[in-house]
């Protein structure tokens, strides 16, 4: 663990001079603070969390812990930070591309399960806004680790043309839906008592207002209007997205007897777009290039090829009728959403023998997008 001695009164300015920050002040990562992070996750400082061969970088726990300290995390947040960072290093997420694209992707982090409320995450009013330390600092810790661990900084390896505020932090908790709707972790095959972290590389959130109708179709069409916006990069190019279904909108769907699967299928179907609709927004169909914009029998192009590409969660506080929609920053061939279970501290790892574990039935959807 490399260390440097500085005047405590000048520490914050020193960290600015070193370009360690995201523009906001950071907490000095003293050895005691970093060790407290590591202890909370039961990790040694040299535990490897992941590597990116395309950058010749391997990130160990001490890099993540020091960035979590700088972000302002409490030690009890660190296991979730580690889980998110391990997801970032999944080859299918393709962080090499996510963190350098001119498109300027956020790493959107969704926590599902009891750990979120245990550490005080916000799944209610203003969950994407300010005011909650866990939401704000977990997302910030992950982004700082990518910036400082993988060199994803402006003028270096981050080529974002515009960027957006979610590149500083974008993290929230799911509010478990009322029965019979399953929580996100259950949809991924985990147990109610598990906690999971889902990440997706996204553009900034769009707020969805529907305050004049409780019809399930009207509620969901309010989303598809945003999903079909022609200049959104994934429109008609087979992407993924996060839908945060707010209190009133979720109630409207459940009262009408709709399931989450039904809602996702409706969104996928009604976000298909015709070449004429794209052209009306100044966007033309790619041909002979990398993105599949093939036109279906209905004369339209899929924005989401599979309803499962829509991560639908319930969250937010009661109000007039607000939800949010976060499109993936690019089509699926460039990056896929990843979900990981939070491994309880001290949980024994399987004995894999000298050659590692073969996970039955496990395979990535496609070689495309991997680096």
């Amino acid at each position: 663990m490399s260390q440097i001695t500085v005047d405590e009164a000048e520490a914050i300015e020193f960290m600015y001079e070193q370009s360690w920050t995201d523009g906001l002040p950071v907490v000095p990562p003293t050895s005691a603070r970093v060790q407290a992070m590591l202890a909370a996750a039961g990790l040694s400082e040299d535990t490897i969390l992941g590597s990116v061969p395309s950058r010749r970088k391997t990130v160990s726990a001490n890099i993540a812990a020091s960035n979590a300290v700088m972000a302002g995390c409490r030690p009890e947040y660190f296991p979730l930070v580690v889980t998110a960072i391990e997801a970032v290093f999944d080859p299918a997420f393709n962080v090499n591309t996510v963190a350098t694209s001119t498109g300027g992707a956020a790493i959107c982090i969704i926590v599902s399960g009891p750990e979120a409320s245990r550490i005080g995450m916000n799944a209610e009013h203003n969950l994407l806004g300010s005011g909650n330390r866990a939401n704000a600092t977990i997302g910030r810790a992950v982004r700082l680790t990518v910036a400082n661990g993988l060199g994803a900084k402006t003028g270096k390896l981050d080529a974002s043309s515009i960027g957006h505020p979610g590149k500083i932090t974008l993290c929230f908790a799911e509010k478990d839906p009322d029965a019979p709707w399953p929580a996100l972790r259950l949809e991924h095959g985990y147990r109610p008592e598990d906690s999971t972290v889902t990440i997706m590389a996204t553009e900034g959130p769009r707020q969805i207002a529907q305050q004049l109708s409780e019809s399930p179709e009207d509620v969901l069409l309010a989303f598809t209007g945003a999903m079909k916006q022609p200049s959104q990069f994934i429109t008609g190019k087979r992407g993924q997205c996060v839908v945060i279904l707010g209190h009133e909108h979720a109630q409207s769907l459940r009262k009408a007897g709709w399931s989450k699967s039904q809602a996702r299928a409706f969104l996928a179907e009604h976000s298909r777009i015709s070449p004429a609709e794209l052209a009306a927004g100044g966007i033309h169909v790619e041909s002979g290039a990398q993105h599949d914009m093939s036109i279906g029998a209905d004369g339209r192009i899929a924005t989401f090829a599979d309803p499962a590409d829509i991560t639908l969660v319930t969250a937010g506080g009661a109000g007039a009728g607000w939800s949010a929609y976060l499109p993936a920053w690019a089509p699926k061939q460039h990056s896929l959403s990843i979900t990981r279970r939070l491994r309880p501290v001290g949980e024994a790892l399987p004995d894999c023998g000298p050659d590692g574990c073969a996970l039955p039935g496990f395979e990535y959807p496609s070689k495309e997008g991997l680096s």
Partner: protein
Amino acid sequence: MSMIELVVPVLMDEPPPAGLQPAARRAFTKPIRVALIDNGKPKARELLEAICKALNTHIPVASSRLIAKGSASRVIDDEEVEAISAQADVVITGLGDCGACSACSLGDAVKMEAAGIPATVVITDVFTRHIASFATTLGMPGYHAAVVPHPIYAKDAETLSQIAQELAAVVATQLQGEAVPPQRDR
């Protein structure tokens, strides 16, 4: 004055692996086999093919082979490097006209160089600084690039041909001569 010790939270670039260096250069006197690694960006294939055609006036080209990478946001893997190495004397990659695709096309070129195949990467002028940073990270600081004006996607065939003809001498030098620094923005 109270002093504190801070844990350094930054990973520096690792030193290049031993032996990582560009392929040896030599003047080609016999017709060569050219591999074009097309990343699928709009007009990438057309531009690469035009460059290859124009290259023939500087280096005799025996054949060209287009390799569609499928996704601009991945770097070719070791199997692909081996397969291309067996069938090509030089490689031209592109088109780097965005942050991710320029980094990945550069990564393709660096991998081919490491495998002993002279290569160059075609990028648009706004990404010269970006790929210079990536070249350092990848262990080949100062790696060359064949730079074209941005944007390429809106250029017609005649303009692409003209750009290719202007660029061909630079590409020929990069493939045969010493590795040269990126050109100035155009």
